[in-house]
């Protein structure tokens, strides 16, 4: 079996890995319910990567009105999540792959067992399930290599948020922008993933000499970004430049929020944070004040 399946050392969380997909999963229910849910996750996981790879060339093509709809259920989640952006900007369904996989696995679990809550964390892009009156406290970190919380969000079952995603040039995927991290809360994980990519791309200072970029293809020959310039390093920027770049991202975030594509967003660039939120869902906190139960993610 190519896939790796194991329980993490706390014996509560399930770890699934296949090629680039790396999931940390936790379900909350009676022990039988958790077992049923984990079994369903493992079963669904067996073919997810193969299904995606069967349509990979389509999924790496820019989304547009003429692009055919993919066949796989995960691939469809990706295509639907990026469709709202297709007319205005360059985006491929790959921008939503992590969130879509998280959702796909979460749905397999919630269809199989009655859970009080659950999450599927696909490398920082998280799909959530909350039964009535349940809540999650989510912690946000800016630098996965130096974890410290820059904010927390309390998500309750009444909030219309079931997906969290983060994008930035320090992450595993390429970014066209310079944000260290853009975290988005949205109705589902694939929508959050696509929006975080779009907003992180918008936090930018085009042509700025302190931003170092190279063509995506020069690093990864088969990148869906082709010859577009991706950010490799950002030197220390002036306060004015930081403000300017964050303003660009905040403007796009506000637009997406008014269109109902996101619930809220937190943008981080060189220590400065900008929150675009409907209410006080996201609260800035001191780095050392950790909530009791948190989903640290990056």
């Amino acid at each position, binding site marked *: 079996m190519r896939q*790796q399946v*194991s329980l993490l050392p706390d014996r509560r969380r399930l770890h699934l890995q*296949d*090629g*680039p997909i790396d999931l940390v999963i936790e379900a909350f229910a009676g022990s039988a319910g958790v077992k049923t849910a984990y079994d369903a996750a493992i079963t669904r996981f067996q073919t997810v990567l*193969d299904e995606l790879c069967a349509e990979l060339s389509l999924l790496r093509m820019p989304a547009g009105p003429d692009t055919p709809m993919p066949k796989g259920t995960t691939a469809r989640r990706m295509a639907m999540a990026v469709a709202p952006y297709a007319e205005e900007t360059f985006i491929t369904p790959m921008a939503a792959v992590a969130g879509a996989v998280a959702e796909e696995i979460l749905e397999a679990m919630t269809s199989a067992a009655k859970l009080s809550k659950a999450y599927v964390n696909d490398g920082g892009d998280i799909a959530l399930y909350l039964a009535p009156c349940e809540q999650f406290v989510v912690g946000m970190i800016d630098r996965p290599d130096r974890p410290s919380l820059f904010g927390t969000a309390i998500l309750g079952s009444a909030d219309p948020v079931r997906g969290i995603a983060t994008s930035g040039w320090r992450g595993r995927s390429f970014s066209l922008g310079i944000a260290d991290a853009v975290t988005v809360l949205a109705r589902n994980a694939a929508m959050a993933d696509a929006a975080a990519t779009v907003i992180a791309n918008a936090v930018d200072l085009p042509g700025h000499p302190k931003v170092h970029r190279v063509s995506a293809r020069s690093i*990864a*020959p088969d990148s869906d970004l082709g010859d577009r310039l991706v950010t490799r390093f950002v030197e220390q920027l002036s306060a004015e430049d930081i403000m300017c770049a964050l303003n660009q991202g905040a403007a796009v975030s506000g637009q997406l929020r008014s269109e109902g594509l996101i619930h809220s967003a937190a943008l981080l660039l060189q220590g400065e944070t900008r929150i675009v939120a409907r209410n006080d869902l996201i609260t800035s906190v001191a780095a050392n004040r950790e909530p009791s139960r948190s989903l640290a993610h990056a």
Partner: protein
Amino acid sequence: MPDDDAIRCDACPVLCYIKPGRTGACDRYGNRDGQLVRLDPHVLLDRAVARGESVVPFLEREREWDGTVVRGGDSFVTAIGAGTTYPDYKPAPFIISSEVEGVDMVTVVTEGIFSYCGVKLKIDTDRHLGPETNLVRAQGEPVGHVTTSEYGSQMLSLGGVRHLTGGARHEGTVTCATLLDLCNGKAVELSIDEGATITVQAGKAPIVDGVQEERMRVGCGSATIGMFAKQWFNKVDEVVVVDDHITGVLSEHQAGKLLGIPETGVKLKGRRSTPGRYFQVAEPGTAWGGTNIRDPLSILKDFNPKIAWRGLRLLMVSTTGEHYAYFELDEALRPVEKSLPASLSESVARIKENCEPALSTVLFMGGAGGSLRAGVTENPVRLTYSVRDALTRVTCGGAPVYVWPGGGITFMVDVTRMPDNAFGYVPTPALVAPIEFTLKMADYAALGGYVGEVRSLSSILSDEKRRHVIARDDNPWPFSSVKRQEDL
């Protein structure tokens, strides 16, 4: 689209093109100087015994590490994921010191690239898998051959440099993939020319032509008679042990004669070999004793009326004890089935108890070449001498190895004693196997080791991404039996 210097990774269906010095989408495989190498987190063994934890390997990441500080002698750095410095004119990737009971120990770890390597397969079965020396194939490509049959098991020899690099490109690729899967504990289907198709997996029962082996018989039918004759003496008049190879008959067998068991007039079908031993009593199959018979009486002819008697007690049993029946002769000297007397059930149970589960065993065998040894010391032959003198312990992913006598460092290791997925490959094709050399710091200096490259264990534990795996408590702890100078 692909650049000339990018290589294609086929570890998963994403099939990334990876440029030199870069990794694929998974961050687990990378292109190092044109070779695809695995960059899995480096594996550390943590000693479980002292902490009473269960012996299950798990994935541990830095941010999930519970912060426990492992004492020096309780953590062993394996070569899994350590990488290699092939062609090894440079020091091995990690040379680590630990203090164990007040003595500085050095472990040199490297992932060796083995194009001279293979797998020895032991398949517990009495079924005929194929003629000796015939080719063993995977996906139609020759990957090895049938070698000798040892007691109750068929040995296959797979891999070796001839199949890996001496044949066609596809033959090498398939051989490498077959060895990799077997070593990483995956199931592999093999077919033998003019023989069976088998599915083998380290530590699991072999499947021969679609039939899963259950148990190894205790011996052939004749041997079973020899082993149990004394336990049957005076409790039964005749015993027939049904076996596809040699069916045994107690009263005719040498063991029965020695005990003075009288003739019974029993007559068997098949070809008599020597007294009490019969070949070919039936066709091979999956019923009684590896034959096709379901009614044991079908292998008997009528009893000789001049010798047999009314009330004669007959036990028929298979070589695994899974099938048995007890009969007594009526006035017409016909066997009539009765329930097995308690005095005999113990011997039947004992036959069964002596039939161990049939398994497939995978031993990886490789030779640490001069250049690999050069990663340990500037004078490679001294490492060989040091291993010979038991000053240096060789382990493979922390598992014990058998080092062959004679020249070089040629070793064998049971892959089930190694952590999961300990093996990798390069497209040469060759297998990448972990190998660790552990010795005293003073001995390391004496054999010309790279003392300047030695890093402390604590620097490894704290500053780099590592995967912690609980050591198996049935493996000797790698630090435990390296000799000290004063012991010599």
